[in-house]
């Protein structure tokens, strides 16, 4: 197993955001965690990126605990990139600078150009806007930049926090197709989504998170057909 989460507990003060969740991500998979507002989706990803302290449980990468790894090394040494909620691109930097900063800690300098060209083939619009300040990009373009930037930091695993948020349906589809393409090239993908239908169509397996607990899991099709999931997350 590439990434395993075991009995994970995370609290913010007295708020228990995660109350013992377990899940696994295998090499090459696209895995999706769905859940409503406040279910703990972002918290799960923040815990993997080591941005929040873990009260109990463990996070294993290739079988080894990563709880002692600092956030920047989760990216640069383990190869887990993170597309955060709300994109969080650096608006005062140009598109090019955002992508360059992402390669700050990379040691395989010879592959940077190749990866950059690959990102331009996936998101041609970024190449046209290289010298534009990232803060002036449209919402959709900012999301493309957030994904491309994450890919430039590391390409082993990409975790994404609601990549479809704020995108028009057509753009959303485009975004998922891009992620599928990135996955085909060998990047394992773990994403969390409220937009369950689209996410489950692209993922192989899914987990349903409800107030800090995993209540359902299985192959995507099974979840899509599940009456409870249909009622709660797919609009009936």
């Amino acid at each position: 197993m590439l990434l395993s989460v075991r009995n994970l507990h995370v609290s913010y003060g007295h708020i228990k955001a995660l109350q013992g969740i377990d899940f696994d991500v295998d090499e090459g998979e696209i895995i999706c965690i769905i859940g409503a507002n406040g279910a703990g989706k972002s918290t799960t990803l923040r815990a993997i990126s080591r941005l929040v302290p873990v009260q109990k449980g463990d996070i294993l990468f290739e079988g080894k605990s990563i709880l002692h790894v600092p956030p920047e090394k989760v990216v640069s040494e383990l190869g887990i990139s993170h597309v955060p909620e709300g994109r969080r691109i650096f608006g005062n930097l140009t598109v090019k600078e955002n992508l360059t900063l992402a390669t700050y800690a990379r040691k395989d300098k010879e592959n940077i150009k190749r990866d950059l060209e690959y990102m331009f083939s996936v998101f041609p619009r970024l190449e046209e806007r290289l010298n534009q300040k990232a803060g002036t990009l449209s919402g959709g373009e900012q999301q493309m930049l957030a994904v491309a930037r994450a890919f430039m930091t590391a390409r082993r695993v990409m975790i994404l926090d609601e990549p479809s948020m704020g995108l028009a349906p057509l753009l959303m589809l485009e975004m998922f197709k891009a992620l599928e393409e990135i996955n085909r090239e060998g990047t394992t993908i773990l994403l969390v989504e409220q937009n369950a239908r689209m996410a489950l169509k692209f993922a192989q397996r899914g987990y349903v998170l409800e107030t800090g607990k995993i209540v359902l899991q299985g192959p995507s099709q099974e979840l899509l057909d599940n009456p409870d999931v249909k009622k709660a997350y797919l609009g009936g």
Partner: protein
Amino acid sequence: MSATEFFQNVVNALQWGSFYALIALGYSMVYGVLLLFNFAHGDIFMVGAYIGFFVATAFLALFASGVGIITLPSWAILVLVILATMFLTSFVGMAVERIGYRPLRHAPRASAAITGLMIGIIFETSILAMFGAQRMKFPELLPGLASASQPTFGGVIISWQKILIVGVALVLMLLLQWFVSNTKWGMAMRAMAFDFAAVPLMGVPLNRIAALTFALGSALAGAAAVLYSMAYPVLDPYMGITVGWKAFVAAILGGRGSIKGAALAGFLLGFIEIFAATVFPSTYRDLIAYSIILIILVFRPHGMFGEEHTARLRL
């Protein structure tokens, strides 16, 4: 004011502006990147002057013609003194960050401000304890410069020393601007100023960039200290206070976090002060100068180049 007087004042204003600008950059960068007013910065400048004193004394003993083991021209000694002082003063800044501020990164801002003031007092009193109250005389780095024939400009005599001070300050500012715009460390600093929490996700170690920011700011303060001591060659443990606070005002006036703003405001402050002193009695100088600045800030509360943006959310 005659034309001659006017040009003399311009040159003086540029010289004082150079000191203010170099020191203001340190305040501004640290604020931009870490949202922290480093109130120990004026005293880092003062420590820089003492470091400069020892470096200059040592290098003159090693390299000056007639006494040194190897003889170097005095301009080369000056360059070495500036570089070595910058290098050593940067460690003072990094130590302040590591020991004083890093443990308080998540503490209320007031704690960090108070810590800065305390570190300043510790620096002043340690220097006082080490060297006593007697004022030390900064060695002359460019002997003969004052007696050489000075350049004239439209009939006005401008000292070589002032040209040198302004020139070195400008070169350092341009280098800083280049560094921040073009290197990956500079990008990381700017990214940190925009969105602190997202920076580690780029594989960038926040602490390293914080230390670098302090190092750069303190190195510039060290350079300012050597230049200042060439013009006013008497050292004392409290020499950083007034200059430091004025440079802090320049940093605010320029717009917190703006490199261009800090540099320009440093020079603007130099001009306002010098010209206030020529128009009004010199005891009124600071009263007039800082009233003008207060008025500017009423109309531009974010400073000349400050941006309102402070969207530094947590992740």
